[in-house]
């Protein structure tokens, strides 16, 4: 990101991460405020806000009503992503600036406390919900702080989720085997059309290989799977590429999720991405009100992907994201995936 303007809350102005960002983008005018109040037309998407997180950093993944939930915990370190994927829910927040929460010491204390409260469970916590966990490092170098600090917690599985190939800054970090770097994958056809700013799929897979060589466990998320003419062969090729590049023994998990979004996103996608066809497939309201492919299409996608993956490995945990448990069971996949069962 190249912010046009930086707005910083005085409470966090003296923190190292804030100073680093200001010095990195020393061309950008900086304004100091007591407290940032987001509102319509107050800031643009080219602005960068450095703020204090006054709420919780760690939240249970909201999942979605009436479908399964993998007990994931979301670590909210900021908001903003530059990959510009057509299907991303962040388009709901048009003209929202990039936000970085700078009180990282509070974040670390909170994660320690949350993990201490669940000592006999391994908690899967990830930063990739509102940001690209590696893309965000361009701004913050956050992983250099989080990986060594949080991997010292004995019952954590910290997930760094990304579409980026830039793993260099992570390779030498002390991760103690408790960090999983995972890549959101798709077919290259979908990546070309719907993930215009993200790195090519093969680059992501090669980055995973490098991470694996550095001792990290890796994960893959085929989410959102998109149904289009040629999907079967295209996705099959990606699975082939994974298993010809990555050691299956070091794959922590693979998740499958079919395209879904709140109905309010449909007109936004049509308006912002008139060339995208993703909203025109047979999408119907699910039990949670979100639009999702009609069940028989989802089954086709999941069945084929499961077949592809299982033809290489029967051991890798493969789970469905936000689907009915009955569907996971029917496909022989894990319902309610977690690391404690």
């Amino acid at each position, binding site marked *: 990101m190249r912010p046009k303007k930086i707005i910083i809350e005085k409470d966090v102005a003296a923190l190292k991460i804030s100073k680093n960002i200001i010095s990195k983008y020393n061309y950008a005018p900086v304004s100091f405020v007591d407290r940032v109040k987001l509102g319509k037309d107050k800031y643009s998407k080219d602005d960068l806000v450095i703020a204090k997180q006054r709420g919780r950093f760690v939240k249970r993944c909201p999942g979605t009503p009436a479908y399964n939930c993998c007990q994931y915990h979301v670590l909210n370190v900021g908001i903003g992503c530059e990959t510009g994927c057509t299907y991303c829910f962040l388009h709901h927040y048009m003209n929202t600036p990039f936000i970085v929460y700078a009180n990282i010491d509070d974040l670390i204390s909170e994660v320690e406390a949350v993990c201490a409260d669940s000592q006999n469970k391994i908690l899967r916590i990830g930063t990739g919900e509102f940001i690209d966990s590696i893309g965000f490092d361009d701004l913050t170098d956050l992983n250099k702080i989080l990986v060594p600090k949080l991997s010292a917690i004995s019952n954590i599985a910290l997930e760094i989720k990304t579409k980026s190939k830039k793993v260099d800054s992570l390779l030498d970090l002390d991760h103690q085997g408790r960090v999983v770097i995972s890549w959101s994958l798709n077919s290259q056809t979908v990546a070309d059309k719907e993930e215009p700013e993200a790195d090519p799929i093969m680059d992501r897979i090669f980055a995973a290989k490098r991470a694996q060589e550095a001792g990290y466990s890796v994960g893959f998320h085929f989410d959102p799977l998109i149904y289009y003419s040629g999907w079967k062969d295209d996705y099959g090729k990606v699975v082939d590429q994974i298993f010809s590049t990555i050691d299956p023994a070091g794959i922590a998990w693979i998740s499958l999720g079919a395209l879904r979004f709140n109905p309010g996103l449909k007109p936004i996608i*049509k308006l912002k991405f008139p060339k995208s066809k993703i909203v025109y497939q047979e999408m*119907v*309201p*699910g039990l949670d009100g979100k639009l999702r492919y*009609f*069940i*028989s*299409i989802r089954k086709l996608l999941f069945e084929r992907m499961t077949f592809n993956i299982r033809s290489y490995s029967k051991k890798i945990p493969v789970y469905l994201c936000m689907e*009915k448990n009955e569907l996971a069971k029917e496909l022989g996949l894990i319902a309610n995936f977690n690391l404690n069962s």
Partner: protein
Amino acid sequence: MSDNNPDKALKKIESYGLRPGKNWKKILGDLLSDIAGRDGIGCEEILLLPDIEAILENDNESAPKRLEKLKNALYKLRYPRHSAALSRFRRHVKDLALPTNMKITPVPYFESKRLMIEVVYEHENGLDEEIEAIKRISEINLVKEALETEEDNN
């Protein structure tokens, strides 16, 4: 480049003597716009499809009836798999020959295998026939049959 804006097509629908109100226009407009976007054609071209044109030109039927038929035909074009699954479901239910006081409903869009069975019961009539019908229902996996895998042309 296709035109997804349904305004002209909606005007054309009106020219057939149909008077869709605001809600009808929203329903028909969304269906037309989505089909046009998916197939890369203009909304007006959809109205030239033989099945659609036949509905529009059928002066023997009332305007409300034609609107309903038009909506159903467009829905079938927009949501072919769901429409086909619903038809199969209805066909299987018909084959079960349920008593007229019984109704069986799937979860919307078959998102779950659950079915709702409604029975209107009057003590004097007993429940023998309904119990037999429920047994027949339990012998067939209606949702699975409705969702029987179609050929995937993609």
